[in-house]
């Protein structure tokens, strides 16, 4: 009759992730939304650590929590928005309608999950330790998925040029 600490950790991280995800969607001030998104990314990274995907957990911290969300927060702070009077589109009825639809979708998915997995708990297969896993990941990335990898590189270059072109002010950085 012992509480399994690793299971408890999962529930804590999952609770934190769900609470901050709800906070992203429901809070009016968009900067609080962005900071809650950062907290969600952190808890998802914790979940990756729990799932023994150590390299991906670190990459999630570096890329998502440490760059993408910071970009969101910086852009929001630059805009200096006054509080919108209506943060939600439509009235209460439209809001409830959308929530109920989404809830129905969630219900369908959860019942499928519950029906598939009822009965015996799933056994865990063995996995290699952290460094061997990263090596394996790298080998497969560069051999089987080489084309996807190179195309992702090209995509990132296109995005870099595109973002600069879209956001540039007329006349360059010292324009009035």
């Amino acid at each position, binding site marked *: 009759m012992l509480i399994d600490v690793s299971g408890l950790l999962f529930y804590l991280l999952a609770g934190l992730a769900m609470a901050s995800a709800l906070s992203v969607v429901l809070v009016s001030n*968009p900067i609080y939304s962005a900071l809650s998104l950062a907290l969600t990314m952190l808890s998802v990274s914790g979940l*990756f650590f729990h799932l023994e995907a150590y390299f991906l957990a670190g990459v999630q911290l570096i890329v998502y929590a440490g760059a993408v969300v910071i970009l969101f927060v910086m852009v929001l702070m630059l805009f200096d928005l006054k509080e919108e009077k209506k943060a939600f589109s439509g009235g209460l009825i439209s809001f409830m309608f959308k929530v109920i639809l989404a809830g129905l979708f969630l219900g369908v*998915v959860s019942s499928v999950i519950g029906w598939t997995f009822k009965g015996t708990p799933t056994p865990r297969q*063995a996995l290699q330790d952290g460094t061997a896993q990263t090596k394996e990941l790298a080998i497969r990335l560069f051999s089987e998925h080489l084309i996807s990898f190179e195309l992702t590189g090209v*995509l990132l270059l296109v995005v870099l040029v595109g973002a600069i072109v879209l956001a540039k002010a007329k006349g360059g950085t010292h324009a009035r």
Partner: protein
Amino acid sequence: MLANLAIATQNVGLPQYLTLGAILFVVGLIGVLVRRNTLVILMSIELMLNAVNVIMVAFSRFSGTLDGQINVFFVMAIAASEAAIGLALAVSIFRQFKGINIRFFENLKG
């Protein structure tokens, strides 16, 4: 009550992770449907992509293969680039309309 807690924590397996992923996905979906601020809609899309990442890594862990993790790698790269473009678009919209409310895009003209 404590016995139930003990049993619950000892049985954390694949269905718990999948349910968590589904809940995060649906919360992101609600965010896209309900909010008016363009940037909050983009943030909800990031939330949905993260939920999918969690599901893929959970499957990868419980089947002992690494395919899920490779997929997550690509999803992260693409999500980051999509966030960058979305932010650049939001900046140019702000310059034009002095606001980033989604009602500015309801008409196709302009």
